[in-house]
């Protein structure tokens, strides 16, 4: 057990070392080498919001905007409410060609989405465990007590904790899915025409340019069906985008 712990910490030490080295390169404006060091961390199997954020910055400085956007989005998955990540991402989005008008969303779904975005999967998971614990305790008291007054208090308590537990569990699950099964991607081809069918001979629909974020709907062979913030959808070849 202790040996296991030691090896884990050893690896993170190495990652920390690479990270600091990369940051040093960044300070010296040697963005290419910085990226190489950042990549080493990724290759050894580690990630963090800070890592992705710094990579996004390096790509931005190298004027490789689609890559910058991709890594900012990756950082956002791990730390959804970080101000810096959001700010830099909006700057990078300025430099994309496509200005997609987002469809107006039902306000409840908007609230729900911003609420789940407050924490990452780890945060929500812990909250769900705590809420579950409180729920159980409250239930216990509810069953135990005969007095009417107490029963009322514990009943509301039980229901409340149950709802919190359920909500935080689903939020945790949502964030988990975002990390493990990416549903979004960034276009990397300078420009690509979406087709109505997963075929080169399909009708041309609309043109997308690099740096645009799209939602992945379906996949058939080498073709992926994508949907955009304004509701339009079409098929593009797999090689033209990279998942977040």
């Amino acid at each position, binding site marked *: 057990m202790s040996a296991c712990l030691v090896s884990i910490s050893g690896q993170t030490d190495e*990652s*920390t070392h690479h*990270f*600091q080295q990369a*940051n040093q390169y*960044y300070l010296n404006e040697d963005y290419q080498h910085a990226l190489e060091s950042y990549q080493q*961390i*990724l290759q050894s*199997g*580690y*990630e*963090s*919001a*800070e*890592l992705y*954020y*710094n990579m996004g*910055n390096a790509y*931005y*400085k190298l004027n490789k905007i689609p890559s910058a956007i991709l890594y900012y989005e990756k950082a956002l998955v*791990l730390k959804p409410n970080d101000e*810096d990540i959001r*700010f*830099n991402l*909006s*700057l*990078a989005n*300025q*430099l*994309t*060609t496509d*200005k997609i008008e987002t469809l107006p969303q039902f306000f409840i779904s908007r609230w729900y989405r911003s609420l789940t975005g407050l924490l990452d*999967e*780890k945060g*929500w*998971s*812990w909250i769900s*465990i705590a809420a*579950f*614990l409180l729920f*159980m305790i409250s*239930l*216990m008291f509810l*069953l*135990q007590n005969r007095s009417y007054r107490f029963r009322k208090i514990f009943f509301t308590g039980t229901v409340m904790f149950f709802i919190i537990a359920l909500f935080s569990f689903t939020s*945790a*699950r949502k*964030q*988990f899915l975002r*990390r*493990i099964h990416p549903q979004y991607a960034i276009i990397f*081809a*300078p*420009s*690509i*025409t979406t087709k109505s069918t997963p075929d080169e001979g399909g009708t*041309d629909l*609309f*043109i997308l*340019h690099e740096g645009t974020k799209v939602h992945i709907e379906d996949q058939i062979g080498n073709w992926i069906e994508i949907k955009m913030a304004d509701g339009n959808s079409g098929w593009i070849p797999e090689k033209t985008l990279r998942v977040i």
Partner: protein
Amino acid sequence: MVVKYIVVFVNNLRYILLFTLIAVSINANQLYAQNQVSFVASAPSAVNLGEVFRISYSVNQKPDQFNGPRIDHFQFNGPMLSTNMSTQIINGKISQSSSYVYNYTLQATQVGVFTIAPAEIRIKGKTYHSNSLKIEVVKSQATNQHTNRSAGQNNPGTSGRQIANKSLFARVELDKKNVFKGEQIIATIKIYSQVNLARFGDIKMPSYSGFWTQEIPTPDQVSLHRENVNGVIYNVGTIKQTVLVPQQTGTLTIEPFELECYINLPRQRPGSFFDDFFNNDFFGTTRTTIKRIKSPEVKVEVKPLPPASQNFNGAVGQLFVTTTVDHMQVKTNDAITYKVIVKGKGNLKLIDLPPIDFPADFEVYDPKTTNNTNASLQGISGSKTFEYLIIPRHPGEYRIPSWKFTYFNPESGKYINRTLPACKITVAKGKDENSTVVSGNLGKEDIRLLGKDIRFIKNDSSRFNTIGKTFYGSALFKGLYLSILLIWILLFVARRIKARRMADTEGLKFRKAFIIAHRQLSRLHARMKKGDEEHLPESLLKIIWKYLGDKLNLDFSVLEPESVKNQLTESGINEDEVNRLISLIEECQFYQYAPGLKKADYNNLINQTNKILSQIDRLMNKTK
């Protein structure tokens, strides 16, 4: 050996002969050219029956001998020779020319087409021949005839100023009268005259409404030639030729062409020889009369085109289309010229191209069209060029798809499709691409961000996680949930057991309540017998309370008569018994504070208690 040469010579004989023939004729021509002998015969090509006319044979050198042709089918006089010599001095050069003309006067006696053989002439020992003449003799109904100078005949039928329509009219002739909409028609305006035309005045051209027109260049001078129209000879002149392209369907009418003609007429006076002599143009004693002629209306049937496909844009004729692209590999913001050239015969000026599907990312400017057509007797032909200027704004691989140009061929009555090929254009990233992008649509928020730089990198290296590993769904996560659940179940079960046990204790106490009370009463009785009377009422009360507490499962230290009454009544004990118990309790309470109770009373009390408790016990056991 020799035989071989002979064979070769014979084989090539025909070529040799041909060669010599050509050489000789060239030489002959040269001979002619050197000596410049021209011997030409001339005569009208068509005459009326009975008409008197002249044929002449002219030669430019003094002939030694003239042998006229044999003239059949005509009555004739002649030949009569007239000579003419002239000397010209131009810019110091002296040139002499002479002409010797042999004239015959003929009158046609038969109707038909007749040939007069060439005449022969001998100059300086060489013989020359003229051309032969072909004359058509027609039976005429016309009364007007050209005045003949030498004969001086009067023309009967020319009454005053009136000139019959038959002797002077105009026509608009069309090469086709039944066409498709868009098909070209050549319209020729001609005048037919049997009179002496001096000049023209006012002209009114038909408006050709319903047609698109283009003039065919015609010489200004109207030259007349003789033509036979239904057996009558006329002098015909072409005024103007136009290409007409009908723009509507149905029956279109071409309005009349009007022309004012000035005609020379001889004076009408019964004349003597002198008058006749003076009655000609030379002495200027002719009258001039004006006749305004009008061509008849002409109707044209214009058929509608058969139902067309979508990309038919009105092109009619026989056409060919080509496309060119000047650059296929460019950088962003470079200009590309896409040219479409339509060539052939047809209504080129009216042609439009169907909209071409340029890639959406390209900025396309309206095409520049250049017309290079001309109108001739075959109609309008030439080419029309459309130049599109397109500019790609973003890098990538693009395709201008292939498209179809459809035109209608009136001769075959079918639509023909010409397919133009697709072409691929590769656009590389040019410089300064970002600057064009930023100038796009900016909202209020976006303007706020203009010109700002990204925020600085983060230094926190404590939060590294393994990629792909999450807390959610991990062993710890599941473990915690499970353990909470298990612990809760354990606690729950434990509580249930305890409660059951508590219930058992309760039951036990309930069952044993009277036995205990009875035992306690017996002990009290024994104590009393012994003489220990202290606190008897108290002890009794204690026993009663304990009994009630056990039986009703209440803490007897808080019991009061009132609450006991309620509980007992609730438990189903009748009121009498309850009252008896209450009065007993009250009695004990009384004696608790009021001494002086006798032994016999104590006994009584104890027995009473026993009795009441046993009664209550029986009742409670029943209701339980």
